[in-house]
């Protein structure tokens, strides 16, 4: 815009270089631009999770009633959370795998908390497209590797909830959590 004005008036003024009007144009457009950008901020960030959604960001789970071999589904950030009490056999199966052969190489020890390695806490959200895998409830299909199986697109997870077969790119996510006592965890 500024150049058009310059072109039109150059004939009248017969002068080159910066004129007062150029400065006013640039200043006005810059001012309006900064103002416009400042308005965009609230318009965009209003879509981010609101305070009440963020307030649900921690969950407590009581582990005392979960027998070895059993799993429970809890809710963390409105998403399913799998808490699984691994048996000796399942731990042995998970440790028998060479991590370097895996798509997302991790050992069971890296996916559990030291001293509580029988407790496998993961999100129940398939890393492919976000379906809830089967295997946390009694009698559900646990897939070829005895962990979890996602029926949407056929991802198989092993007893450490690591991806072994199918389209999912990553292991089931282990959220941040801590043991508040020997039989209770605080997730988030």
């Amino acid at each position, binding site marked *: 815009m500024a150049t058009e004005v310059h072109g039109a008036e150059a004939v009248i003024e017969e002068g080159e270089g910066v004129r007062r009007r150029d400065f006013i144009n640039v200043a006005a457009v810059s001012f309006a631009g900064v103002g416009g950008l400042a308005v965009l901020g609230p318009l965009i960030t209003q*879509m*981010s*999770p*609101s305070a009440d*959604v963020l307030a649900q960001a921690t969950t407590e789970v009581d582990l005392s009633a979960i027998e070895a071999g059993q799993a429970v*589904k809890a*809710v963390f*950030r*409105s*998403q*399913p959370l799998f808490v699984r009490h691994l048996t000796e056999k399942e731990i042995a199966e998970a440790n028998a795998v060479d991590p370097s052969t895996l798509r997302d190489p991790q050992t069971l020890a890296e996916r559990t908390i030291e001293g509580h390695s029988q407790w496998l806490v993961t999100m*129940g959200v398939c890393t*492919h*497209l*976000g*379906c*809830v895998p089967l295997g946390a409830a009694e009698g559900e299909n646990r897939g070829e590797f005895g962990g979890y199986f*996602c*029926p*949407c*697109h*056929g991802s198989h997870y092993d007893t450490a909830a690591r991806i072994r077969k199918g*389209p*999912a*790119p990553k292991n089931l996510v282990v959220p941040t959590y801590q043991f508040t006592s020997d039989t209770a965890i605080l997730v988030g």
Partner: protein
Amino acid sequence: MSFPWAEHYAPKNPVMKWVDERLPLPRLVYNAVGAGYPVPRNLNYFWNFGVLAGVALTIQLVTGIVLAMHFAANAGVAFDSVEHIMRDVNWGWLLRYAHANGASFFFIIVYIHIFRGLYFGSYKAPREMVWLLGVVIFLLMMATAFMGYVLPWGQMSFWGAQVITGLFAAIPIVGEPIQTWLLGGFAPGNAALNRFFSLHYLLPFVIAGVIVLHIWALHIPGSSNPTGVEVKGPQDTVPFHPYYTAKDGFGLAIFLLIFAAVVFFAPNALGHPDNYIPANPMSTPAHIVPEWYFWPFYAILRAFTMDLAIPFTGIVIIPAKLLGVLAMFASILLLFFLSWIDTSPVRSGNYRPLFKKFFLLLVLDVLVLGYCGGAPAEEPYVMISQIAAAYYFAHFLIILPLICIYEKPSALPGSITEAVLAKSKFKGERDALPGTGSDLQPTGQA
């Protein structure tokens, strides 16, 4: 904006004359869809689908606006409010079934409209802008349809929202924050439902606006026609009204007949029973698929099961999930470049013997993709969709440019009128030949 021989608006009614002098809206309508718009005289029934798409959008707008008077966009009550519409609201079931099936019919019409354009070369100069705006409309339609499907807050609604926003999570680094931002939470919830409702209400009007641009751009060169030969004189055209208003009206009657048959006798045939189960974030339906009109693209998304990696090193360049997402978006974005990929000067597929064959293969390929997209993600469907997805891209990126080099088009008619007369002359001669007319066939009684 039109041909020099276009009829001029001359209002006889004094009120219209008064209005026209102050706001030339009657003139605009007359020149756009009235006698003031000269149209090639040889359009076939495939040219009905533009008008039909406009009618389908109108049906969606009207039923949608009244449905919004009864729907509550809150995760706690959305499902119940849809059931309230179905059971309690006067004629609510009709409005909702018309709206839900109206979306399907809108897509059927638009798919035929797109393939009409693909076959008759409607995307070629000087109509590139018409085509580009058409692809924009198609993308907006997909977004609108997806968000509308989320609103009843059933199982398919919820998991559709989860999977589709999950596509954005495939983008490296910024993907997951983008998904959280889109949903307004860590999983689909009230925030997502509410914003989808807001946008689902907004986008149809944006579509209507882009349609105005689409028609505006169309009316500069005027409509194409089945021969692909441009209009050369007044003898090649007829006024839009009454000729094509009548022809479109007939097509519209047929469309409404089929639409009504589905709405009244098979209203759930195109839907999923799972969406009559309230959304449950703790349990995914066993067989999760999008609505049928997304199946070809869903098949392309799922066709990528292997990471793009440097051989023998295990270094992954692009993970399979991101590849699928990129391919799915690319399959549509590719259409933006079509006007420049197909360099053949001949527009109509009728005069392109090689193109015609590969066009039919493309139609078949998209149908195969659609079938696989609706099937469970297991063999043989995965492998078939991989082949079909590869062929889809090969058609546009390899086959089409090669056709343009090697094809020898057949002779074009000198003009639209010449093509029309040649056809009727042939027909007249055939009818005149003794013994071939139907009235001369021997019957059992003779």
